[in-house]
C-alpha cells in the first residue's frame, strides 16, 4: 500500500490526514490521482486543482512512483 498525505481542505474532505492506496506496478502520479478519486470521490474537485508532490517535489502526471516515495496532495497554497 502507498500512503498519500493530505493537508488543509483535502484533509477535512477525506476526514483523515492520509489515505492508503493499492497502486499497480510501475504506477505513475496519474494512477495516484485516479486512486484518490476512487477512494474519496468528494475530493475530485479540489484534487483537480491540486499538485501532487513526490518526495517534496511537485511531480507531473507521468512521473513513476517508486517503493518508499513520500506522496502528498498539495492544494493551492495560501501562506503569508
Amino acid at each position, binding site marked *: 500500500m502507498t500512503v498519500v498525505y493530505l493537508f*488543509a481542505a483535502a484533509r477535512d474532505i477525506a476526514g483523515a490526514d492520509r489515505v492508503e492506496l493499492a497502486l499497480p506496478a510501475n504506477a505513475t502520479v496519474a494512477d495516484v490521482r485516479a486512486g484518490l478519486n476512487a477512494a474519496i470521490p468528494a475530493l475530485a474537485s479540489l484534487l483537480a*486543482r491540486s*499538485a501532487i508532490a513526490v518526495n*517534496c517535489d511537485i511531480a507531473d502526471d507521468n512521473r513513476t512512483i517508486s517503493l518508499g516515495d513520500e506522496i*502528498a496532495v*498539495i*492544494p493551492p*497554497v*495560501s501562506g*503569508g
Partner: protein
Amino acid sequence: MISLTTDAIDYTALTESVRDPHCGAVTLFLGTVRDLTGDVVTTHLDYEAYAPMAEKQLAAVEAEVRQQWPVGGVAIVHRLGRLHVNDISVAIAVSCPHRDQSFAACRYAIDRVKAIVPIWKKDNAPDGTSDWIHPTETHAS
C-alpha cells in the same frame, strides 16, 4: 536562514541577523493577520504546513534571492498554528548594499513564499464557521 515556528516571531532579532557592514540597506516585511477581507470578518487564522516540503521551498526562495541580488543576509520565518488579528504570520528581512536591491529582493521573496511554499490558512469567522483558503489561480511549482 529560513524556518517554520509556532512561536511569536522576534522580528527585531530577525532584522539584526541580516545586518552586514557591506550593506547600506535592510528591508523588513511583516505579514500580519487582517481583520477584514472585503466585508468578511476574520477572528483568527489557523496555519498549517507540509513541513519538510515547506522548508525545502523556503530554502529555494532564499537561494533564488541570493542568485538575483547581492544579498548580505536574508532571513525568512513563517509562523504556524492559531494566529489572531494583528499577529505576525511571516517575516522576511533582507540586506543589500543599496536600497533598490533590498526592496526588490524582499518583495520578490514574499511573492515567492506566497506562490510556492506549501502552507495553508483557514479563515475563522465570528459565527464559528471556517474555510480553508485555496486560491483559484493555478499556483506555480
